[in-house]
């Protein structure tokens, strides 16, 4: 692979989710040179893993399609997938960045015909479905993946399975000799749009996510509802595949808690309100959703969405943070124990399925970032002290898509200013 051409006139965008794509496109459409690097095999980030978007309840594919069209049509923008930043040195206007590119084992010739996938029998956990299902070890990350190019999982390289994939390819796209590469580039400004990850629900021991099959997370519930998900879009519970009609949502699972995440993740109240409508969509009046909450935070104009869900007769609200979850061993139902705040009544309530509205944790938590980067007490990126690197989207704060896009546009403008300064000093 050839190293992309980048100079101190180039803006580097790290992370190819909705925020990174937006920041990159805004700058590229202003005529700036942009390099967008993404660590997974595809652009799209976590929004591509949602079934529907609040507030309009549209499918994420439309937004994705528009962005991909803009990306394809823009010569100023280069993208690199399976690429991570390992080091940054230098300062505002003149950074040296070290990139690590992992092997995909499939080159540009790939037409995504799928023959390699049919040829192999080995399977790996499907990251797109948060590991709820398996996928062949030669796979396309998902239908909207960009680039539309297969990936050979490293686990079958050097095995007969890998050779099967290679033999099946009609256009000689499988290259099992690809190696990890390290590339050094020069850039003028960096936008960190590295996004978020769901808080590890195993850490909330009283909720038994690791012990009780029918306790799942909100991101997994998105996959259950999605026709491309592990159940083909049916709301079936993991323990026995029975319909999940009576669903409980537990808010602030990990957030607003000094033991886990200090911050309010800001989107999870809306996410659960939205997900009650998946239950309604699936079962009509026979569905039942119960939201256990401390307070509902549907910020500014989302209040309307909340008001409508409040009117829905299939949805009820219990003001209480659940203290613990037990399991009814006879039927696999989770039993929620707690005390409500409106009257201090003790309850022990059974549901078919429990969805933990897990918090958003910065994806870079635990990742070594350049020393100059300033983060808040929850590891959200504020920017660099030298004013040449910027946080954008969910990497900078727990944001919904709309606000993430606004934040990315703002970061892009700041990056453009750095590049402009470079250009004018060089011209002088």
């Amino acid at each position, binding site marked *: 692979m050839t190293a992309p051409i980048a100079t101190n006139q180039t803006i580097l965008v790290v992370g190819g989710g909705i925020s990174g794509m937006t920041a990159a496109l805004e700058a590229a459409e202003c005529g700036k040179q942009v390099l967008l690097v993404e660590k997974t095999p595809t652009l799209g980030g976590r929004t591509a893993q949602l079934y529907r978007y609040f507030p309009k309840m549209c499918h994420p594919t439309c937004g994705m399609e528009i962005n991909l069209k803009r990306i394809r049509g823009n010569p100023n923008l280069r993208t690199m997938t399976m690429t991570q930043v390992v080091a940054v040195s230098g300062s505002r206007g003149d950074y040296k960045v070290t990139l690590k590119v992992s092997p995909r084992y499939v080159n540009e010739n790939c037409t995504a015909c799928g023959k390699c996938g049919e040829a192999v029998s080995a399977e790996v956990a499907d990251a797109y479905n948060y590991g709820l299902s398996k996928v062949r070890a030669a796979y396309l990350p998902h239908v909207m993946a960009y680039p539309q190019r297969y990936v050979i999982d490293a686990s079958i390289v050097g095995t007969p399975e890998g050779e099967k994939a290679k033999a099946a390819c009609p256009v000689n796209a499988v290259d099992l000799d690809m190696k990890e590469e390290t590339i050094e580039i020069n850039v003028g400004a960096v936008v960190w749009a590295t996004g978020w990850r769901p808080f590890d629900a195993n850490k909330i021991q009283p909720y038994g996510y690791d012990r009780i099959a029918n306790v799942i997370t909100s991101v997994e519930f998105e996959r259950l509802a999605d026709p491309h998900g592990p159940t083909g879009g049916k709301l079936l519970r993991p323990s026995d595949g029975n319909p999940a009609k009576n669903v409980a949502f537990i808010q602030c699972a990990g957030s607003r808690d000094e033991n886990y995440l200090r911050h309010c993740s800001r989107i999870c109240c809306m996410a659960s309100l939205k997900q009650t409508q998946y239950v309604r969509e699936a079962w009509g009046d026979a569905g039942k959703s119960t939201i256990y909450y401390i307070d509902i935070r549907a910020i500014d104009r989302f209040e309307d969405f909340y008001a409508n869900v409040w009117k829905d007769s299939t949805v009820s609200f219990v003001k*209480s943070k659940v*203290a613990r979850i037990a399991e009814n061993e006879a039927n696999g139902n989770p039993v929620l124990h707690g005390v409500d705040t409106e009257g201090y009544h*003790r309850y022990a309530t059974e549901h078919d399925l429990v969805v933990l509205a897990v918090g958003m944790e910065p994806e870079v938590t635990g990742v070594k970032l350049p020393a100059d980067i300033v983060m808040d007490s929850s590891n959200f990126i504020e920017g660099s002290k030298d004013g040449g690197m910027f946080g954008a989207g969910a990497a900078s704060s727990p944001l919904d898509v709309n606000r993430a896009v606004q934040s990315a546009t703002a970061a892009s403008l700041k990056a453009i200013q750095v590049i402009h300064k470079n250009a004018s000093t060089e011209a002088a």
Partner: protein
Amino acid sequence: MTATYKNDFLKEVEANVEDGQWVKMCMQCGVCAGSCPLGPHWQHSPQKIFMMIRAGKREEVLTSDSMWMCTSCYNCIVRCPRKLPITHIMHGLANYAHRLGLAPKGQPTREIAKLFWDNIVKTGRVNELKFSLAMYFKDGFGQGVKNAMAMQGIGLGLMKAKRLNPMEMLGGHTCKDKGGIHKMIAKAREIEDRRKGLSGH
């Protein structure tokens, strides 16, 4: 008539109860109430007590036996999302109610605490025999004999294992400098009272 929100009692608690300044930090999530192993047996959970303090229910809180039910298991402290030192506040409230003479009469935890305190300050060491007997007889002579008979087996076992010495009845073992201990305790009380603004009362 309009009800006005008064926080006099909250201020009183903040000024006088150990860790009382934490009460206002409670966000009423209910985790402590649902996690307390004694939950179903208390009249008011910690969550409810904190709300009652803010609502100015002074009499109801201070005369309640709820805080005396806390066994210091620390489950609530471990789980509270706001890290309130709930256990300590419970004991602080109990202690404050006791000082004011409002704590419920005959509440067993309170009685035992008093007996334990009186016992240990005498010599600087707990006299287990006297303490046990005082406990048996706290509800009168007849009940004391019944209690002692019921506990006989355990008492004999403890003696065999040399955990209980019948000779302790005659004075019992003490610290080397009993007078020093008494002075120390008096001084500590003086400092504590001054801290709580009780000196001269």
